[in-house]
């Protein structure tokens, strides 16, 4: 039995320690906002936060989470930076198919928390691990800058 703190709530699940957090979230807990894209940490669709830091949940064994707080796209809107990013994503109509955007929003929120006024180089560094096949990168960049100027 593993006990996890997800979006401020505790959940206990029957999962082998080596089971990646991605599948615990999606298949055992039913939080399907976090997406499966590659399974090898190459695309970033599965990005969640552990104590506010972005991690690839497809590679993270659930047993390694410990008591760190997990935030997923379902809960990130409750944080000031997450809410700003989600709003900016809609203000600038970033999204196309949307499948990668959970991961993009989680990476962008972590960036904004760490670097409230990111430069283009900061955005490149923080966001280049997230693939978008629809090619929304131009708008993601603009939306991060837009969010960085937004009042809380």
């Amino acid at each position, binding site marked *: 039995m593993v006990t996890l703190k997800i979006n401020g709530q505790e959940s206990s699940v029957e999962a*082998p320690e080596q*089971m*990646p957090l991605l*599948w615990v979230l*999606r*298949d*055992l807990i*039913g*939080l*399907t*906002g*976090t*997406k*499966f*894209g*590659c*399974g*090898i940490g*190459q*695309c970033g*669709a599965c990005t969640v936060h552990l104590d506010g830091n972005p991690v690839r949940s497809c590679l993270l064994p659930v047993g390694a989470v410990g008591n760190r707080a997990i935030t*997923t*796209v*379902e809960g990130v*809107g409750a944080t000031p930076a997450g809410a700003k990013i*989600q709003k900016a*994503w*809609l203000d600038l*109509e*970033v*999204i*196309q*198919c*949307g*499948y*990668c*955007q*959970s991961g993009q*929003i989680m990476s962008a929120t972590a960036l904004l928390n760490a670097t409230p006024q990111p430069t283009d180089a900061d*955005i*490149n*560094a923080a*966001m*280049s*691990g*997230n*693939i*978008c*096949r*629809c*090619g*929304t*990168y*131009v*708008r*993601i*960049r603009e939306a991060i800058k837009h969010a960085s100027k937004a009042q809380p």
Partner: protein
Amino acid sequence: MNAEVIDQLLDPARRTAIKGVAAVSGVLLFGFHIPTVRAGQKATGSPPLQFEPNAFIRMDQLGTVKLIMPQTEMGQGVYTSIAMILAEELDVSLDQVQVEAAPPNEKLYANPAFGIQATGNSNSIRAFWMPLRKAGASARAILIAAAAKKWNVDPAVCQADRGEVVHAPTGRRIAYRLLVGSTGGIAPPREPALKSVDAFKLIGQPLKRLDTPDKTNGKATYGIDMMLPNMKFATVAACPVFGGAVGTVDQGAALIVFGVRQVIVLDDFVAVVADNMWAAKEGLDALRIAWQPGPNAKIDTREVWRQTRAASERDGVVAKAVGNASQALSQGGDRFDADYELPFLAHATMEPLNCTVEVKQDSCEVWVGTQVISRAQAIAAQVTGLPREKVIAHNLLMGGGFGRRLEVDHIEKAVRVAQKVNGPVKVVWTREEDIQHDIYRPVYLDKLSARLKDGKIVGWRHRITGSSVMARWFPPGFQKGIDIDAVDSAIDVPYDIPNLQIEYVRNEPPAVPTGFWRGVGPNNNVFAVESFVDELAKKAGQDPVAFRRAHLDKTPRLKAALDLVASKSDWGKPIPARFGGRTGRGVEVQVAFASYIATVAEVEVDKNGEVRVTRVVLAIDTGIVVNPDTVIAQMQGGLIFGITAALYGEITIENGRVQQSNFHDYRMLRMDQTPDIQIHIIKSAESPGGIGETGTTAAPPALRNAIFAATGIALRRLPIDRDVLAGRKPSLAHT
């Protein structure tokens, strides 16, 4: 493709067989009427006292306006643009409507461009523009008539306004919802009066998309997110060699994996069923499978190209001839020939293939994100032997389509798995299986020949060699040896050329299945034509923009786009190097999917042959624009899709197997390589064109021509060859 061309390609017998073939705004249109829902023929489950004037609109007395989407949403924004068209003529605002995916029903929801329910070829708006305007206008007329009857006034003095009918002389208003119960017995007008373009309130506005809010917070349900009570999870492995089979399977180690329930061994693939995807994957990895590779185990990329090149030496079937190309080309002088080659490509949608199915004794239910919902239903019926009406197929959001979800191979496999499972099962492909068992964009070889006289092209021959996707996917599109998609944007080359001949050689690659890929036929042809024209310009000693411009008198919309992009892109001005490399600007023009586009790309090539695309400027005339923000988004994204293919895209085969498997070896463009992109929309009153695939066809030639300008190296193959650009390998070109 234009009407004349379609007409020329279809043989007379077929023309008669396909009733009412007409081409409007560049799409093949089959006979279409506004389908009405007859009593007892409910397209969707609906409470009583609904107003259902046609298959696309449902209104109830609570004020709900439900719009049924005949085309499917895969990111291209079609739920919003189709809703805008219906809402415009119905005269409701967009915040009053809900959208719902159409169920499988060819009679009600077939795409007029195909005659089947399909979302592809960038034709949703072109094909449905008039039918949906008429559907909306017809419903509006009925509501106005109902109000006029209620008030006992002349309907001619009533009008609609944002969900209400207004009696102009008195200013009386009544909400549509209060008219829902009074529409019975009012016949729809034979020819509903459409709004004039200058009366549009929604069309032309950059309205917010209807599907995006739920895509920011995890609420949107894609196919892969389907969850059902007692659902099992499965993942699959097919024989890695194309056409191979399963030999023997040692299941022992898999069955002891925690959570694994069942191993299913079928002729051509194996599935592991478990309590969750992770257990299924662990179980699959634990299986020891001996495959029977079959006859294709020796096929490799070299063999594919050997066969393709040999086929390209044959005379092709003539798809279009003007003047006398052979004579014009044989008169000596400045004759020029070049071959262009394009690789196999995988689709790599961000959402891996998946399908959820429950097979019961006498029914079957399927949940899937698909571009072809009626084919999804049909394949499930075929596999189970059930009548089609016993198969309920639900269409969910797609995490990208790009043509991959025009196929139903994964649905067929999922149903076969579900037949062996008690209860519902969600079958999810790993990324590796998704890449290695795709239905690939075919390889193409384009042989081009031209002769120049006084700086103008006087003779032109273009022979396209490649697979016919149409022959398999849509046989009416393959006629008299010609695949109408494979020659699209070649037979209608936009330049004024007095003598031209376009030929097609059908050549199916050994073993490798081929399908549509974003950009379809124009992808290949625009690249070849625009690369060749750039080389001709150089041979003529002319500037690439000026050379193209001199051949565009008969295509003024394209000429205007070219002029605009030249001015907006600083054409002719130097580009300072940012990374110490060689810089260049390349141009391309295209008429594809009934849109007129001119593009300029800027690149910088470093000494290692690495290419950075630094800026792309694009001008588009796509006729009347429904949602300009969606057009811009599609151009931005389409360009990046095309840049990705040009820089990295290639699937290679060795020993009958695909060598790439995931994003580490099938690379995608990322944020740090994304250029500055500027899109300029040209105002136009022409019928709407297609947009979803146009950026993808535009990027590769513009980028390739920019490399040509920067380095003088004329690349003739994609993806770009960094060894050639670094001088480590000789160029194929002899310029």
